[in-house]
């Protein structure tokens, strides 16, 4: 029983929390957090997603930014205080009956770097189940709002390494790439049962649609970034990269799984019949490589106090896998799987990511905004900083991939080449619409 509950909790948690984790939460710069996660200059996501920024002089985009930021992970102290015996803590021990994977996943998705000033409350409401031999009604109360009506899941594409060498704007290197995508969608009958408290029906299938994909490899890359016009203070920069994607391996599964009710909801020894089917496609590492061509482009314009940039990644990145195996699996009253095809060609596509940013600096004030879309909804940050002598005051607002608005605010003090920054960040977890507040601290070296 606990397994089922924890499983559902994990889905909710991962589905709801991973998006902001990917887009926002791994920021360790208290200054950036104080501005609502805003990326300025070469900070944050700009250089990753806009190839033109490689050519933009670092000095032109500093805008009060430090050369180096060192996070002060006060949250770890709090975490160790809450879990003083981590090695023997049953919640973190998979062999223990008290093992709590939800806590583990939540800890990973929300690394305890920040001090939790105010925890986001979990909802408190009663859930009611009415059960008879031929009836079943579930009323989740306010928690029904948390049952997702639309497709939900996690996805992302990353470039874990990118070594190379360059000369005058030209760069040759090899980039690692990973793409993952996990999606779920409740079927209409299950959605109505859980969200709308519809009674369970006879001879009805209740199911969840499933999709999972993971692929990875490396990509020899030729890129260029340079100033097209202007000088170091007023310049227009452009950048581009061509990748030859080499796929090392991939796996994909699509299907649906659920159960079918009988003539009587709780009649007989087996009141429901599990039912599921999937089509799995894979090309294991060591098999024939996949291949494809794609590219990145970006432009940036820096003119005194104004900075504007746009970057697009993985354009046309379709990977052809020439030697793929397809298997189908089916489960009803018994299970079987059978190969559908082998040594066939399949294709996958990397999501196109884009970023657009704007920054304006006048005197000791910096304002900025950016939009980042990594293939699953846009994340928007708007923020600013006002420097007053030794001090700085910051504020910002962000809209995450779940379209939730979060707020950041903070400040800093600078003594010569050393600064101390504090940033506060509101956040919501997957189980509540109420916000919690975390605090980040970091040392800055200017």
């Amino acid at each position, binding site marked *: 029983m606990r397994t089922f509950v924890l499983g559902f909790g994990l889905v*909710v948690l991962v589905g709801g929390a991973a998006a902001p984790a990917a887009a926002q939460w791994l920021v360790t710069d208290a200054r950036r957090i104080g501005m609502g996660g805003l990326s300025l200059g070469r900070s944050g996501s700009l250089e990753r997603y806009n190839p033109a920024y490689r050519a933009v002089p670092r000095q032109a985009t500093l805008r009060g930014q430090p050369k180096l930021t060192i996070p002060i992970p006060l949250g770890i102290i709090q975490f160790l205080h809450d879990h003083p015996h981590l090695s023997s803590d049953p919640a973190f021990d998979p062999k223990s009956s008290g093992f*709590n994977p939800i806590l583990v996943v939540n800890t990973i998705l929300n690394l305890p770097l920040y001090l939790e000033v105010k925890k986001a409350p979990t*909802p*408190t409401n009663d859930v*009611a189940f009415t*059960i008879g031999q031929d009836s079943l009604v579930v009323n989740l109360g306010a928690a029904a709002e948390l049952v997702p009506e639309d497709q939900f899941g996690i996805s992302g594409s990353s470039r874990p390494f990118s070594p190379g060498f360059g000369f005058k704007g030209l760069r040759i290197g090899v980039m690692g790439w990973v793409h993952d995508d996990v999606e779920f969608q409740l079927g209409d009958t299950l959605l109505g049962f*859980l969200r709308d408290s519809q009674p369970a029906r006879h001879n009805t299938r209740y199911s969840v649609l499933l999709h999972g994909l993971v692929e990875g490899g490396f990509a020899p890359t030729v890129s260029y970034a340079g100033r097209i016009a202007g000088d170091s203070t007023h310049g227009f920069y452009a950048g581009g990269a061509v990748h030859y994607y080499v796929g090392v391996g991939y796996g994909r599964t699509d299907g649906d799984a659920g159960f079918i009710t009988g003539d009587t909801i709780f009649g007989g020894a087996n009141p429901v019949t599990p039912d599921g089917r999937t089509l799995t496609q894979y090309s294991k590492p060591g098999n024939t490589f996949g291949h494809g061509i794609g590219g990145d482009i970006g432009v940036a314009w820096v003119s005194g106090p104004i900075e504007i940039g746009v970057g697009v990644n993985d354009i046309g990145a379709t990977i052809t896998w020439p030697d793929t195996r397809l298997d189908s699996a089916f489960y009803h009253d018994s299970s079987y799987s059978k190969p559908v095809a082998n040594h066939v060609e399949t294709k996958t596509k990397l999501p196109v990511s884009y970023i657009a940013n704007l920054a304006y600096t006048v005197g000791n004030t910096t304002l900025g905004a950016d939009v980042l879309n990594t293939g699953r909804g846009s994340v928007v940050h708007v923020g600013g900083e006002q420097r007053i002598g030794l001090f700085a005051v910051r504020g910002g607002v962000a809209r995450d991939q779940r379209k939730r608005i979060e707020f950041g605010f903070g400040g800093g003090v600078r003594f010569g080449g050393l600064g101390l920054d504090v940033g506060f960040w509101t956040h919501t977890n997957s189980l509540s619409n109420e916000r919690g507040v975390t605090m980040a601290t970091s040392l800055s070296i200017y």
Partner: protein
Amino acid sequence: MRTKWLWVVALAGVAAGCGEGHAIFNVDVYSFIKGTGRDTIPYFVPPGPPASASTFQRIDLPGAGSSFVDSVIVNGKMSLENQAGTGSIGLQLFIAADSAGTLNSSALALTVPDAAVSGTAVTPDTIVGRFNDAVIQLFTGSQLWIRLQAKGTNSGVILLQGKAVIKSLWLTVVINDKLF
């Protein structure tokens, strides 16, 4: 009652609504025993000392595990369908972890007070009660046994005969979730 599959969906809601909320299970027990014969307890009470008759029923539970069963409330209706004689009939519910345990007096979980019966009259009665903590703990296990006992006294000179027929029986189980 093989309700294990139900907990998959039902406790999903608990997970979704985790916090300090309760999971409330309204179980229509009567729907599971209706027409099986277990909803009827025949009684035969000869003149003289009190007598009783019982039926046993095993109930499979999903096992609330670390969850804490806060309370269990019983309510329902029954009819005492007397066929002959005069006296009084009451109902007792015994609950234990095994069938033999239900024979212990300490397993008494609920008593429906005696009602007077006579002739061929049908006497409606209600079943209302709340289980004590000892009984509640049994609901955290994977199964329990119940014994329904009709007990009566015969104030007449002929056999008191009839049957207690359950017309409705609901269990409301309130669980404080401790899964997180």
